[in-house]
């Protein structure tokens, strides 16, 4: 557990990855029409804000950004004591008929995203849902994949991926700790 942490993305890498994702979102959706970003708290919400800012820098338009808390829709609620709820803020323009890009920091089992899709189903009916993540570490347990990935990070299940971002952790970095996978990266 106490094995050394390896930094795999530094602050510059994260900025470049987010700026690339911003371009990819615009390319795939042919501009900003009907786009809405929904971040999954807490880090996904901050990353969504940064993506919106990057998109604004490119296109000169600030697209609506919100947050969506998935706690009440999780399938593993009973595995630990009840968790505090995090804010859900849906942009006033709503999500009906919009192209929603869900944003999270790490894509792992896919269960958080499933819960987010359920939570979103309560709030409206987007015309399309896409998924952007800073890190995809594999080990999916559900048929879910990301449309935009900052970095694919092959990991073993024993490893721990830690995403730090300035807004919550004071610094931008992605690191891995624990026993590495047999083949290495």
């Amino acid at each position, binding site marked *: 557990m106490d094995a050394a942490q390896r930094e795999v993305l530094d602050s510059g890498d994260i900025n470049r990855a987010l700026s690339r994702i911003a371009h990819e979102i615009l390319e795939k959706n042919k501009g900003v029409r009907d786009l809405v970003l929904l971040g999954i708290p807490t880090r996904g919400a901050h990353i969504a804000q940064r993506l919106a800012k990057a998109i604004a820098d490119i296109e000169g338009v600030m697209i609506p950004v919100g947050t969506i808390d998935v706690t009440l829709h999780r399938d593993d609620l009973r595995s630990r004591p009840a968790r505090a*709820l995090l804010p859900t803020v849906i942009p006033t323009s709503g999500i009906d008929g919009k192209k929603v890009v869900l944003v999270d920091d790490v894509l792992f089992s896919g269960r958080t995203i499933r819960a987010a899709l359920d939570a979103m189903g309560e709030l409206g009916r987007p015309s399309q849902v896409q998924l952007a993540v800073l890190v995809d570490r594999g080990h999916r347990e559900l048929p879910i994949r990301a449309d935009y990935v900052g970095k694919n990070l092959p990991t073993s299940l024993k490893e721990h991926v830690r995403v730090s971002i300035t807004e919550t952790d004071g610094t931008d970095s992605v690191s891995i700790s624990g026993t590495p996978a047999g083949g290495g990266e």
Partner: protein
Amino acid sequence: MKRHLLSASDLSYEDAVLILDTAEELAKLVDGPVKKLPTLRGRTVVNLFYEDSTRTRISFEAAAKRLSADVINFTAKGSSVSKGESLKDTALTLQAMGADAVIVRHSASGAAHQLAASGWIAGSVINAGDGTHEHPSQALLDAFTMRRHLRDSKGDLAGVRVTIVGDVLHSRVARSNVLLLATLGAEVTLVAPPTLMPFGVEQWPCEISYDLDRVLPRTEALMMLRVQGERMNNAFFPSMREYSRGYGLDDKRASALSPEAIVMHPGPMNRGLEISAGAADGLRSVIVEQVANGVSVRMAILYLLLGGASIEEVSL
């Protein structure tokens, strides 16, 4: 959080703020497009009511249903209680049916505690009013309402000046409120005729006054209590009129409040006795809002007690 909610004093500062914050998030969802959440699917909540209730029972039922729990309503009238069944046997029956939470109201002080401590029931026990003792969920919804109006829905109630007026002696609402508000840092003053102050009230974490008019101008939240005639036998004050003149909130007293102050009442109201119709329906009144907030707060209580693993399941 403890497994049961029996007394407002069970709640630490962190627990109390967590419940209020959770209720705030749930209120945002329920006021919006989301009417039902899947969180408590498959859990059974029993409303065990030995005493009459409108707001509390309906509110707990609505809260449980919005979280997708199954609700069983039990009222003493029309049940085997009228044939003489004891609390223990009723509790064992509910346990056999697999109740995950029992919300209990009883005319005997300590009934909820008895139920929780006896081991008759494996689930959580939530006190929805026991005699003249406590009513913690009411105190939480009152604190939630105050926080919305006076503290922008954030943090605690540090420094908020709350005045609770009336039949403190028989009021479980007053006792729970004093305990919870002290935890949250509010400054509480109790106002009542000397005959309606409980024994030992000087030990409570609050101020005491017998002069409503002196306290009114500095009050930020004014809570009027129901005069509980059914527990009194006409023995505590000379006449309704005299009580009303000394301790009732009439239109003139309501105008002595600061413009930002709010007027609260846990219901049911005796209009014309402890509160005039003008004050009850006036601009400062948040009485109807208290009822709406009750659902959000009770959703938060149910979610935090039942939504996660129980302490035994986590086996810390």
